[in-house]
């Protein structure tokens, strides 16, 4: 393995809310349910957790310092040692994992949350593009995904039918996921009969608008077995970024994902399950090509973001879904992927394993 992480770290508890079209209470309430759940699972006192880190987005709630109010969910008093990233909570997990590599603390509580329903996500997320050339155009993530889909089709790497296959399988798998928001048993032909939303994308190629939260406790190896029966080991995390200008990228490929995969040595042994942050169906085709996953590897058995997209928790939920399958003994080695920015601009990979440290 190329990643040199001297301290073994395990996921010892996970929790997530269902993905709601609209959650009729505060973002704090969403996080609080998850945090209380993971704390109960490990049987720790809240105040014995060494470090707390969250991922959320103030622009979503339209409230400066919303992330500070979210601290209510983890208990703000007495003061806790905490940090926040204005990113998907998978990046909070990355910081938590690195923080444990210092060797002076043993446990971290990671949470991610987002309520997209009160705002208009299409009007929020173009604000993360370059502020001179792109943001004033309102170049939103749906439109960017449409441009990427067209580029894939024109390159001959995928067809609208391929996109529909991703949607059909994901939303059918979601029928077995109690946290899924959109689940349906639809054939490819039925999906292709739907009208375009942002041609060549149809509405079902887009993720739903969701409210939700997720939380996780990770610990060093020396306490992991005391905190849970089946720790899931984080073997490595790597994340890479590409240009924010769509015109400077090959939109039909994900070189950043490929580099992260090589750094993590994902092909060193078989991957049984991969939970990929497929926000738009064409992204799965691109990620599959970049990752070269083996035959028989389950991809997004949860349904993925096409079945529920609690923005800022979506990536962390991918780690949770892969870890749950490993902890339950359905898989031995898993891959979780998170992304940020338009058209898979930034990609994070996390390799997980069950068994002994």
């Amino acid at each position, binding site marked *: 393995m190329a990643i040199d992480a001297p301290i073994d770290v395990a996921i010892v508890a996970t929790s997530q809310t269902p993905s709601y079209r609209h959650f009729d209470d505060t973002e704090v*309430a969403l996080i609080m349910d998850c945090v209380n759940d993971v704390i109960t699972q490990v049987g720790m006192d809240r105040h014995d957790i060494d470090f707390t880190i969250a991922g959320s987005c103030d622009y979503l709630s339209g409230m400066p310092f919303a992330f500070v109010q979210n601290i209510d969910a983890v208990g703000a008093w007495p003061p806790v040692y905490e940090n926040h990233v204005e990113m998907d909570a998978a990046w909070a997990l990355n910081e938590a994992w690195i923080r444990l590599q210092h060797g002076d603390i043993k446990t971290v509580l990671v949470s991610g949350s987002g309520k997209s329903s009160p705002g208009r996500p299409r009007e929020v997320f173009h604000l993360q593009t370059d*502020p*001179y050339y792109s943001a004033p155009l309102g170049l939103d993530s749906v439109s960017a995904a449409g441009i990427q889909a067209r580029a894939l089709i024109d390159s001959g790497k995928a067809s609208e039918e391929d996109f529909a296959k991703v949607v059909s399988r994901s939303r059918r798998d979601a029928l077995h996921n109690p946290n899924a928001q959109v689940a349906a048993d639809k054939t490819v032909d039925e999906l292709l009969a739907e009208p375009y939303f942002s041609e060549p994308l149809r509405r079902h190629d887009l993720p739903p608008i969701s409210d939700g939260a997720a939380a996780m406790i990770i610990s060093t190896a020396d306490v992991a077995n005391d905190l849970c029966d089946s720790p899931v080991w984080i073997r490595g995390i790597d994340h890479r970024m590409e240009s924010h200008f769509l015109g400077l990228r090959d939109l039909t490929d994900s070189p950043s994902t490929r580099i992260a995969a090589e750094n993590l040595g994902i092909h060193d042994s078989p991957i049984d399950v991969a939970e990929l942050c497929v926000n738009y169906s064409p992204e799965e085709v691109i990620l599959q090509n970049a990752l070269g996953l083996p035959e028989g590897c389950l991809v997004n058995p949860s349904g993925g973001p096409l079945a529920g997209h609690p923005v800022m928790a979506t990536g962390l939920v991918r780690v949770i879904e892969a870890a749950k399958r490993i902890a339950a003994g359905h898989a031995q080695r898993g891959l979780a992927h998170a992304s940020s920015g338009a058209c898979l601009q930034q990609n994070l990979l996390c390799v997980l394993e069950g068994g002994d440290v």
Partner: protein
Amino acid sequence: MTTQIPDSYHVLEFPYTRTTGPVVGPFLTALRDGKILGSRIDGKVYCPPLEYHPTTAAAVESELVEVGPSGTILSWTWVAHPTPKHPLSESFAFALIQLDGADTPLAHAVKAASSEAISTGARVTAQWREECVGAITDVYFVPEVDAEQQKIEPGEGDVIITEHLISLTISEPLHPHRRRFAEGLLEGKIIGQRSPASGKLYVPGRGYDPMERIRLDQSAEEEVADVGTVVGFTEINPVQYHGQKERKPYIRCSILLDGSDQPIQGIDIRHIGVDDFRVGMRLKAVWKAPEDRYIEDLDNRYGTIPDTVVERWDPTGEPDVEPDMLKEHTI
């Protein structure tokens, strides 16, 4: 009597002004004046022009060269339902357009009658708006065959600042506990939530106890006194920033209602001078007549007692509370 309680609604706005620098500035100036520029770096022409090397991110001396105004669509999507943030109000295409003379494509909007008029490889031409301000939105594109000859009058001076107003509308029903708080106010009652875990009384309730991290529901709710003590205040001399509605100085204070454990914040005092206002002062709500009460500007964020239900807060005439007794509640 039923009075409408509006949904939680607020608009977040930031009027960003940004300096343009040595590359974006000349690009926007030229765009305003009818020309599109790219930057030549290592023999390749990038449009939009870059201040830095696209691969190494090193600072580069950009040679700016004119490109376009026509080009070729490399990829596109049809925006059937534009949002208010989009540059065109009718259905249009977003496209990656490789302008003639450039080696990389620019993302921009193409105005066309329908998606039938757009295809990969199609030729498009820039059209300038009637009023150009030195922004990327000064132009849009149309199919080359539809392009009109334009004479662009150059503007004055260089574009050294861009203005970009960010405006986000956030709206949802009031949370159930916030709605019950609002209903209470219309009835002349202040409703709080008492945590069974800590015994603390929060007003207004937020649906949870932040100290003990438990959720609170209707069973935790009780009426709170409408008399209390000032625990903190500030005199606000309104600075005329974007969105400011206030013109005259006023006091904004926090009041710890009797029996509660958390001051209610954001109470505005306009009839007591700052020289007569003190921490420890006792105040009582003077309610509006029931038929005059209504709820406005009460949202899911902070929660206060608006002056649309309480006319003002009058001194009770009781002796002040010793400020030292309030130190747990001051910020």
